[in-house]
């Protein structure tokens, strides 16, 4: 009897790891919050929605295909206005030091998560600022007419108009589902903001601790409905400097890193301890002109600047071969991309002539806002801005490079404080509308994501029509027309589409590259 006892003890002891299996990810910045509804930056989504929460439908990791998640299945009415979701049963919320769930996930949680964003009188609406940017940018408030709970596991969305991308929108980060029980408890405790600072979700990882600008710690959700993750602990090591991230990856201090510098990639590929996964990104890097500020209200000036910049030099000097020249606001891999678009050629003489025509022969002064952080669509905005500055000097335009901390940069530019700005976008759902609407529509010119503040009636009409049309061929034609207008009016200089690189230690298995630019650690293991 004792022998069996000792034997089983030894067996148990030998199979116990010395340390719980921990995966360390060197991330590029601190999240703004842990509630994806309040944010628009990928950094925040990586830290919150992609590890902690689930949505009704989700993209299969590594692809742009939708798959059921919290919703087992769904049906769409013939007129495209009613979406009915059947919810999965037996899904457990996180149990942490600060919250113990009393019930499983059900329709109440879905209603809460959406009503918080759409109902101004909802008790949670004002909490943590009351600004739900993605919800507004996607025009959800005008789109969703009603949300009905048919029973504990059935939810119905009634739309005001047919909208083809709606299902894909339900897979986006802002559509993450939160715990109503937790929300109610925090509200009665008088600390509703905790919902957004100490999150509770149904996702693969549970929030443990966050030290601002230092690290975020997660633990695997033991009752995750897809099965407990192989990795026990997850750590986001917040490392703002990309060379430090690389140094840490090399030293084995982290297993996966964000946003490598293009110039470091050849060395990484040579390193046998590191694997570099790559995939063309669903993104666009652009230089936008604030058409509300002179002289950018004159289309000749915008066209002049389109001719004035040597983009090939930028591709060589900044992207170092990791980028492709962009001529349209959507990347080539998205359907309806217009191959036939004629791009503006680099021609400083033509640029000067156009400026002369516009009465600006002596040039003018402007600013160029440049991001302080690396993004998938722009590895080094400051360098790019300096090169643009030099090209502008050649045609008599004097530009000042301006930069702010990332969060400040986003909010100030959202308010339209800039004259010109370098920014970009990564697609969220593979639908062309996901580029056109948030970036170039009249609605987004008001809400701020349209950094050119460009509102063109014809263009707006085309994309609105395309959004409600369900026939893809018809939609494609409409988007092609829209691209033609875009090119003519030139509210941007389209710069590049870039390749997405994800370096990881070679003993990390199961890591996929998300075409939308996110990092998901579900399904990842360390050997």
């Amino acid at each position, binding site marked *: 009897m004792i022998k069996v006892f000792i034997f089983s003890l030894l067996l148990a002891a030998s199979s116990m790891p010395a340390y719980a299996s921990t995966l360390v990810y060197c991330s590029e910045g601190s999240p703004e919050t842990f509630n994806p509804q309040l944010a628009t930056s990928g950094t925040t989504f990586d830290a919150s929605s992609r590890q902690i929460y689930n949505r009704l439908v989700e993209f299969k990791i590594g692809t742009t295909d939708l798959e059921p998640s919290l919703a087992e299945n769904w049906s769409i009415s013939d007129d495209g206005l009613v979406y009915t979701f059947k919810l999965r049963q037996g899904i457990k919320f996180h149990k942490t030091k600060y919250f113990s769930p009393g019930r499983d996930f059900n329709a109440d949680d879905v209603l809460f998560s959406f009503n918080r964003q759409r109902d101004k009188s909802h008790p949670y609406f004002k909490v943590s600022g009351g600004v739900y940017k993605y919800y507004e940018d996607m025009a959800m408030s005008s789109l969703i007419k009603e949300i009905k709970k048919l029973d504990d596991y059935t939810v119905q969305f009634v739309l005001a108009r047919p909208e083809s991308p709606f299902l894909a929108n339900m897979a986006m980060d802002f559509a993450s589902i939160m715990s109503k029980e937790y929300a109610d408890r925090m509200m009665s405790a008088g600390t509703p903001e905790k919902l957004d600072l100490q999150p509770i979700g149904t996702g693969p990882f549970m929030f443990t601790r966050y030290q601002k600008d230092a690290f975020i710690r997660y633990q695997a959700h033991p009752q995750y409905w897809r099965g407990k993750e192989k990795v026990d602990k997850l750590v986001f090591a917040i490392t703002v*400097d990309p060379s430090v991230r690389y140094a840490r990856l090399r030293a084995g201090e982290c297993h996966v890193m964000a946003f490598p510098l293009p110039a470091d990639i050849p060395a990484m590929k040579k390193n046998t301890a590191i694997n570099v996964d790559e995939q063309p990104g669903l993104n666009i890097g652009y230089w936008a002109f604030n058409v509300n500020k002179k002289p950018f209200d004159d289309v000749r000036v915008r066209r002049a600047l389109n001719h004035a910049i040597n983009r090939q030099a930028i591709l*060589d000097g900044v992207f170092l071969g990791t980028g492709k020249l962009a001529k349209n606001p959507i990347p080539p891999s998205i359907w309806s991309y217009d191959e036939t678009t004629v791009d503006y050629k680099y021609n400083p003489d033509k640029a000067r002539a156009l400026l002369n025509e516009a009465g600006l022969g002596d040039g003018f002064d402007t600013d160029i806002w440049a991001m302080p952080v690396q993004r998938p669509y722009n590895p080094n905005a400051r360098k790019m801005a300096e090169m643009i500055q030099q090209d502008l000097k050649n045609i008599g335009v004097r530009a*000042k490079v301006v930069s702010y901390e990332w969060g400040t940069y986003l909010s100030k530019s959202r308010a339209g404080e800039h004259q010109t700005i370098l920014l970009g976008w990564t697609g969220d759902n593979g639908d062309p509308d996901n580029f056109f609407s948030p970036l170039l529509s009249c609605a987004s010119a008001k809400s701020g994501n349209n950094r050119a503040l460009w509102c063109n009636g014809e263009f707006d009409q085309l994309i609105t029509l395309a959004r409600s049309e369900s026939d893809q061929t018809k939609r494609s034609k409409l988007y092609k027309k829209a691209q033609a207008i875009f090119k003519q009016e030139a509210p941007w200089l389209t710069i590049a589409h870039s390749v997405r690189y994800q370096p990881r230690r070679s003993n990390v298995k199961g890591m996929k590259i998300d075409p939308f630019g996110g990092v998901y650690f579900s399904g990842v293991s360390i050997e």
Partner: protein
Amino acid sequence: MITHDENLMTPWQQNWQVLHSNVGAMLGLSVLLILVICAVFAPVIAPHDPAMQYSDALLVPPIWMEGGTMRFFLGTDDIGRDLASRLIYGARFSMSIGLIIVIIAMITGVLLGAMAGMRRGFVEASIMRLMDIILALPSLLLAIVIVAILGASLINAAIAVAIVLLPHFVRITRASVVAESSRDYVLAAQLDGARGPRLFAITLLPNIAAPLIVQSTLAFSSAILDIAALGFLGLGAQPPTPEWGTLLSSSREFIERAPWTVTLPGVAILITVMASNLLGDGLRDALDPRLKR
């Protein structure tokens, strides 16, 4: 025939004598003079235009490393700009801004210190308390906060650093004024009818010149270091201005691939500050009456 008999030399000639014999100080002085020449004659001395981007010569190493060429003898940065030219032009920014800061701090400091020393009472108390407040904050922190409010630029950084260096000049001036005020020659001048600013300018100023000069070199060193730190943090001179600290911040990511872009600007700063400190030490030895035994 002129003999350098000690008893026949003026005090200033005596000081120069002592300074001259101090090897370190002479070294410092010569280096500073070379830097001033670089700064003034930058357009002539620099081999290239510091803003010129040679797209065929990205990250070229300096001449003593493999792959280096005489064309860019200190190498180039990642968008093909000649480092030697950028460093030489950087000398222009650093030296001039350092000088401007010291002058502003000195003039303002001396004025405030004189007022404090001569007026006494409430004026003195408030000025000294203000200086205490400035000193209560770590210098870089204060400078950063000022720049954050005024906006990031070389001029604002200069203002911030001048404010930070102010208290030292004020204190020295006030202490000297207070110490000298009771001396006979001052009383004599006052009996003669000299008052306020005139009194200060004619009698006191020449006698407190010595500690002020020493403090200036120290202030110059601090100014260079602080401006470089602000440039490094992105709060001072903005790219593409080739201020040494700003150069360091944009080349930081190349520390492995192109270490010369990081080491060389730092060496420039180090040499300048060392030279200034050596000169300051030498001046202190020469001008400090206590050591004249």
